[in-house]
C-alpha cells in the first residue's frame, strides 16, 4: 500500500470515528484536512454531511485521490471524539508516525464504551432525580424520579439492541418510562406527578444533535446543520408522542 492510500485510509478512519461518535461537522472536516496536510498532501478538499464523508487530495507526483464513505450509525460517546482529537493533534505536530497514529485510531475504534453500561443507567437515574428536584423542589419525589429515569434508559438500551430502529425505540422508551411514572403515581409512591415524569424523560433529551445543529449552522455547514436539527426535532416529537400515549393511560 502506497503512502497516498495509507493516508486516505487513515484520514477516513479518523473522520468516520469522529462523525459516528458525535463531533460537529466542521471539526470532522478540519481534522481530516489537518491530518492530510501533515501527511504531505496538497489541494485537500473534504466535504462532510451527517451521513457521509468525502475526501479528495493530490499527491506530490500530481496524482489525484478521492474517496467517500457512508456513516450509518451515530452514537453519543464524546470520549472517543476527544481521543481522536488528541491523536490528530499529536500527528499534526509530528509526534506520531502514520503507522502509530493508525494503530491508535484502530485501538479507539475497538475500545468499549468509556463507562460501563450499569454506570450509565445509574447516572440517568441520578440525573433524572436531581433534575426533577430542580424543576419541582419536592424531596419525596426524588426516589420515584430516580426509578423512572433508570427505567427509561434501561428500556431504551434494550429496544435499541433488539429492534435497531432509532426513533421508534425512543418512542417506546418514552412510553415505558411514562408507564412506570403513571404506575408509581397510581400506587401513591409519587406525590407530584409532573416532577416525576420530567425526571423520567430528561435522559432522552437529544442534547448532542441539538447543540451540534446550532454549531453547524453557524459555521456554514447548512446541509448538516438542518439535518441534525431535523434529527433532534423528530426525536423530540417521538418522545412527546410517547408521553402522550402513557398519559392517556392515566386518564383512561
Amino acid at each position, binding site marked *: 500500500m502506497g503512502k497516498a492510500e495509507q493516508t486516505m485510509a487513515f484520514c477516513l478512519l479518523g473522520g468516520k470515528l469522529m462523525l459516528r461518535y458525535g463531533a460537529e461537522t466542521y471539526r470532522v472536516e478540519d481534522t481530516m484536512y489537518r491530518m492530510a496536510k501533515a501527511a504531505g498532501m496538497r489541494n485537500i478538499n473534504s466535504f462532510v454531511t451527517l451521513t457521509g464523508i468525502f475526501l479528495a487530495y493530490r499527491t506530490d507526483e500530481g496524482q489525484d485521490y478521492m474517496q467517500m464513505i457512508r456513516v450509518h450509525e451515530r452514537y453519543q460517546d464524546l470520549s472517543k471524539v*476527544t481521543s481522536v482529537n488528541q491523536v490528530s493533534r499529536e500527528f499534526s505536530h509530528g509526534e506520531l508516525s502514520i503507522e502509530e497514529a493508525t494503530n491508535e485510531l484502530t485501538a479507539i475504534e475497538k475500545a468499549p464504551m468509556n463507562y460501563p453500561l450499569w454506570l450509565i443507567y445509574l447516572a440517568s437515574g*441520578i440525573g433524572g432525580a436531581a433534575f426533577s428536584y430542580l424543576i419541582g423542589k419536592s424531596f419525596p419525589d426524588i426516589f420515584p424520579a430516580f426509578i423512572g429515569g433508570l427505567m427509561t434508559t434501561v428500556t431504551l438500551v434494550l429496544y435499541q439492541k433488539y429492534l435497531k430502529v432509532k426513533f421508534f425505540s425512543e418512542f417506546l422508551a418514552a412510553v415505558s418510562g411514562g408507564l412506570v411514572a403513571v404506575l408509581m403515581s397510581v400506587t401513591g409512591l409519587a406525590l407530584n406527578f409532573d416532577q416525576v415524569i*420530567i425526571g423520567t424523560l430528561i435522559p432522552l433529551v437529544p*442534547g448532542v444533535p441539538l447543540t451540534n445543529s*446550532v454549531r453547524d449552522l453557524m459555521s456554514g455547514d447548512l446541509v448538516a446543520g438542518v439535518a441534525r436539527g431535523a434529527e433532534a426535532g423528530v426525536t423530540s416529537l417521538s418522545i412527546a408522542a410517547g408521553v402522550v400515549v402513557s398519559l392517556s393511560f392515566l386518564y383512561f
Partner: protein
Amino acid sequence: MIMWLELMFCFVATVAFGIIFNIPLRLVWWGGLIGMVIWLIYSSLPMYGLSQVYSAAVAAFVAAFTSHWLARFKKVPVTTFTIPGIIPLVPGGRAYSSMLAIVEENYSNGLALGIETLLQAGAIAGGLVFALSIFSIGKGVGQRYETNR
C-alpha cells in the same frame, strides 16, 4: 441554604449527564461546575425582574463562553463542556405542561405553553450562537459583500 442545596443538585445532575454522554472522567467535573454557575444565573436573574427566556439566554451565553474558554485551555473539543452545560436550561417542565394541556383538549393553553417552550429553546440557541460568534471573530465564512478585493 436552599440555594446551596439547589446548586449541589445541579452539580450532580450535570455530572450525571456528562456520564450519560460518555464524557471522560477528568472532564465531567468541569461540566458540573459550569452547570452550577449557570443555574445560579438562571435562577437568580428572574428575582431582578428579568423574564425566564431572557435569563435562559444569558445563562446559555455564559455556559458557552466558559466552555469555549475551558476547551481552549484543556485542548479538547468544546462540545464536551457545552452539551452537559446547557442541560439544566432545557425547558422540560414547560414542554410537559404544554403536552398535558393538549391531552386535556385545552388547545389554546397548550399552544401558549408550547410557544414559551420554543422561545426558551431559541434563547438557549441564541446564547450559544452569541458566544460562538465572539470566539470565531476573524475565522468565520464570508457573507453578502466581497469587500476585500
